[in-house]
């Protein structure tokens, strides 16, 4: 071979001995004359009840397989997702004359196998047992008896499988992909959850079976050691009694790709690899003329070992054991996606390379050479698939199901081999959309999020749980045993204990700081039970707040405002020197709302709800117990705005620890305040807090 790739580094030659070649090994053997690829024939017939039957005769093995396909439209299962699957499993658990034990014993006794699903039944046995097999199979299809105890078993198994899938990154990735591609309001996007499985009942399973398991929407493919005449006799005998019925046709809006690229992360702390999926839904019905050119295009891009994506990610960069893409045609909505698994540290590099390949596919034409190689490869795949006689049966079913031309598969190789470079460009243009991708990663957030942000147009990462529900990552899981009560108790202990806190009767706090270059001072007087007087002096601007425990007012810039009843409620709860001891008395409810990270510290978030429904959120340091942040949401005529106040630098003042550093954020403004002094029990007079 003349054009051998030359390698820049060291070449190592392993020679096991001298070879006295009788042949010129440098010459690659030429192919012999191409063998004819013959498609096996099939026969077909229909029963009066509408069942369409295909027979593929193949005597290589003395066995016959029966594949029944119920061709219904998709169904949205909603809050009881899983009931169609349960109905499919129930089919095999009992008929009017056989219980599950009997079915199991009879099937195993003839060395056969029988499996059922929500959209079909598959059975296979040796030829000599075919009568027995069909007796059981047709019984299961026509006379099932759904029983509660069998449904209970199935639900239990489903719940266990769901539990097991929680730690399977591939299962998670598949489920989240469906939810994000198709949306949870589409049958392809919904998935089982513990809640939905618990809602499944026998009635819905029965209804499903009664409605959809009908011969007039079904196909039966028979493959193996059998001819048409034998098949016809058997099918009449065993499936002739199956009653047809009106079957509803469901329609759904077609899911669309995202408008811009989005990064969607399932954060999994123990992942050592990122499972990456990049893609979107497409409209590509099986009967579309684009199907063959699109599958050639996909094979070049990521559909074989040699494909651009695998070659780049595995052979060039060593990021992965394997990478690829798939384009899926579907009657209702199809999909295109690239998928791979890579070590955490190269997650963003791998995604960059994938996008490079997607763009390259769009921006440059494929070469004649790689097109020809791909056609050869696909021709070979087609030929290999014919080794299994089931393939011909599948062809027959597809032709009927998707209204393909009757000679679709006969002409497949011809059509495949006539695909041109320009056709590849046109399907690429149509189906490869590097700016409309869901970029879904199941991986370890800590190690990969920084690198991922750049792929999202908004610069943000959306977080999803393993069921494809969006969540706010700042609320992560709370350890067992932690409640709002324990968090508050820890806080009280941290600042000096209840006894010391209760000794404080009044308190004077002097702070100074700056906002937008303006210096300010703040003096706060507090006295038990909940009196407050506060003076804010920014030179040009002065504001006083007075609260006597019952009512209050705010004055500043020559204006005076009475506190609203809502403000009064909040002041009552906030002005107390030990508000945290009097929550029950004041009718304040507290709820542990989650965990979040505040300035790099893990914190418990507690929502305090006032008797009138107003809320204050406070975050407590999970480690030290200190209060780290207070968040007030205020409704004003200008709309609601949020004010956060961060606390730090806790210091001891007569046995009680107070924050000496405060940072307030309101909108875009940040005010840093430093405590200059705190004085305790100086005997503040009541008239200081009088509201005139």
């Amino acid at each position: 071979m003349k054009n051998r790739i030359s390698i820049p580094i060291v070449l190592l030659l392993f020679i096991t001995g001298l070879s006295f070649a009788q042949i010129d090994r440098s010459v690659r053997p030429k192919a012999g004359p191409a063998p004819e690829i013959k498609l096996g024939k099939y026969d077909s017939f229909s029963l009066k009840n509408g069942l369409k039957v295909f027979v593929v005769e193949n005597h290589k093995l003395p066995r016959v397989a029966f594949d029944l396909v119920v061709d219904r439209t998709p169904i949205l299962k909603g809050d009881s997702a899983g009931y169609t699957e349960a109905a499919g499993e129930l089919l095999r658990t009992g008929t009017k004359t056989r219980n599950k034990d009997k079915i199991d014993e009879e099937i195993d006794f003839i060395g056969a196998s029988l499996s059922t699903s929500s959209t079909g039944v598959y059975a296979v046995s040796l030829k000599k047992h075919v009568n027995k097999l069909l007796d059981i199979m047709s019984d299961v299809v026509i006379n099932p008896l759904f029983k509660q105890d069998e449904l209970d078993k199935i639900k239990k198994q489903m719940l266990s499988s769901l539990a097991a899938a929680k730690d399977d990154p591939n299962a998670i990735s598949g489920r989240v992909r469906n939810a994000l591609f198709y949306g949870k309001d589409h049958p392809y996007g919904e998935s089982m959850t513990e809640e939905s499985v618990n809602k499944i009942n026998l009635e819905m399973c029965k209804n499903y079976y009664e409605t959809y398991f009908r011969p007039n929407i079904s196909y039966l493919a028979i493959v193996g050691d059998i001819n048409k005449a034998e098949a016809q006799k058997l099918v009449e005998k065993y499936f002739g009694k199956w009653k047809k019925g009106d079957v509803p046709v469901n329609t759904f809006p077609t899911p669309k790709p995202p408008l811009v690229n989005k990064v969607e992360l399932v954060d999994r702390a123990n992942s050592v690899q990122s499972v990456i999926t990049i893609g979107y839904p497409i409209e590509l019905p099986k009967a579309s003329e684009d199907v063959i050119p699109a599958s050639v295009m996909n094979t070049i891009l990521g559909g074989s070992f040699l494909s651009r994506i695998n070659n780049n990610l595995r052979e060039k960069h060593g990021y992965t054991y394997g990478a690829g893409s798939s384009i899926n045609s579907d009657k209702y909505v199809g999909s295109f996606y690239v998928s791979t698994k890579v070590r955490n540290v190269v997650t963003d590099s791998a995604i960059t390379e994938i996008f490079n390949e997607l763009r390259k596919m769009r921006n440059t034409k494929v070469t004649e050479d790689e097109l020809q190689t791909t056609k050869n490869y696909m021709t070979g795949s087609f030929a290999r698939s014919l080794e299994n006689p089931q393939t011909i049966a599948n062809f027959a079913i597809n032709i009927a199901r998707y209204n393909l031309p009757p000679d679709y598969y006969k002409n497949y190789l011809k059509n495949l081999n006539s695909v041109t470079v320009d056709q590849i460009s046109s399907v690429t243009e149509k189906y490869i959309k590097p700016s409309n991708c869901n970029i879904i990663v199941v991986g370890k957030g800590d190690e990969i999020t920084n690198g991922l942000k750049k792929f999202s147009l908004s610069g943000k990462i959306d977080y999803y749980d393993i069921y494809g529900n969006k969540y706010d990552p700042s609320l992560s899981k709370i350890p067992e045993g932690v409640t709002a009560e324990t968090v508050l108790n820890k806080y009280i202990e941290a600042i000096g204990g209840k006894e010391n806190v209760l000794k404080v009767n009044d308190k004077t706090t002097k702070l100074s700081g700056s906002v937008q270059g303006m210096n300010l001072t703040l003096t706060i007087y507090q006295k038990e039970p909940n009196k407050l007087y506060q003076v804010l002096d920014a030179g040009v601007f002065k504001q006083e707040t007075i609260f006597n425990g019952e009512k209050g007012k705010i004055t500043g810039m020559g204006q005076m405002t009475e506190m609203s009843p809502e403000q009064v409620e909040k002041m009552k709860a906030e002005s107390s020197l030990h508000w945290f001891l009097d929550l029950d008395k004041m009718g304040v409810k507290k709820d542990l709302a989650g965990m979040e990270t505040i300035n790099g510290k893990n914190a418990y978030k507690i929502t305090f709800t006032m008797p009138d429904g107003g809320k204050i959120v406070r975050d407590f340091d999970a480690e030290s117990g200190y209060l780290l942040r207070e968040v007030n949401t205020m409704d004003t005529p200008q709309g609601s705005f949020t004010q956060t106040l961060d606390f730090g630098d806790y210091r001891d003042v007569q046995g009680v620890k107070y924050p000496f550093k405060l940072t307030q954020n309101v909108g875009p403004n940040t005010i840093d305040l430093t405590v200059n002094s705190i004085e305790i029990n100086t005997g503040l007079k009541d008239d200081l807090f009088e509201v005139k």
Partner: protein
Amino acid sequence: MKLKILAMNHKITPPARRRRSILIFLLLISFSFVFSQTRKIDFVEYNLSNGLHVILHQDNSTPIVAITVTYHVGSKNEEPDRTGFAHFFEHLMFEGSEYIGRGEFDKISENAGGQNNASTSFDQTFYYQILPSNQLELGLWMESERMLHLKIDSIGVETQRKVVKEERKQRLDNQPYGTLQEEIFKHAYKVHPYRWTPIGSAQYIDKATLNEFIDFYKHYYVPQNVVLSIAGDINISQAKKEIEKYFGDIPKGSYEIKRPNTVEPPLGGEVSDTVYDNIQLPLVVHAYRIPAQGTPDYYALEMLNTILAQGQSSRLYKSLVDKQQKAVFAGSLNYSLEDPGLFIVYAVANVGISPNDLENAMQKELNRVKDTLITKEEYQKLQNQTENDFVTSNSTDLGIASSLANYYMFFHNTNLINTEINKYMLVTREDIKRVADKYLIKDNRVVLYYLPKKASGTK
């Protein structure tokens, strides 16, 4: 939720290889069945002068040919400080040869309409190609090229080190129960090289040096250590000529091939341990030491495995999954190997079932096969199941080619593909009880519990 205990493959698509289970004739039963005509597999076999063993099977029904090359070297030939070496070497076999440049191997294969892959197990390294039948010569040239003068460059080695480490993560470290095979064998063997598994340890993958690769290649990748088995749309005499043309001049290796002769002493008491993994449902596994494949008790153990685990009426499924609902999956595996292997019984707990409870239920089923003969009905069922499996195996060219090679290499009798049934014929109900009694005993087993790690990191 079946657990996969597989050989390591070169690529993601694994070759369709299954353990055989084979038909036995009815002996004692009063029912009489008409036997299905079993498909006789005709083959020719011979040695080239360099010791390469060739097996050919002709079947012209589909215009494809499966070429398999089995090297009698696996992870048990590795040094303890080079675990994973055989599998890593398998990856390098795709890197190129004197006349096939780096990255060209797959290009040539796909361009010819072919499919290829490879796998490494404890005892062997297996390569295959399926090609359109007019490309047989090309396939022979490619396989002879990498047998004769494999060529590896440092870029290829460094890339494959990374790829193999990702393969390990994907299969083991990032998969629930992914380390099961590794943990079982680690606990079941103390001195025999089966104590590590083909994927090996990531740390050793970095250590292997060029000289070691050369040495390994010279030692094991030599004609007298290889079976070339071909099935499909071929003409036998033409194929023979082409095989001679491409393989005839490959020199015989000069080393005497090392076969590990370590005899693992009896386990000498139950070994039990707990593995904490990123899982939700506990898994309990018993692994019992058993004799090597092909020894007299091997066939009875295969039958025992079928009784325990094949079909929904099987003992373990019926009892643990269906009746008691203690398990979401229960099964067994006769993991027999060239040297003494393991009989593995395992179950994954349903939500809320403790591993102890599950193990007790599992143990009860094992006690049943030890204490009482299987019923005549069950025996009949067992025979029908094995008949079905036997008759319907050998359905693909690749399956036939690899079975032929396997029978020759490990059972020293290629014709077992047609006659192994006779070995099963000799297994009686008493034999099944006897092997259960003999091997499924406490002192002969490893018990592993897979339990959830306390904190789960995923929402």
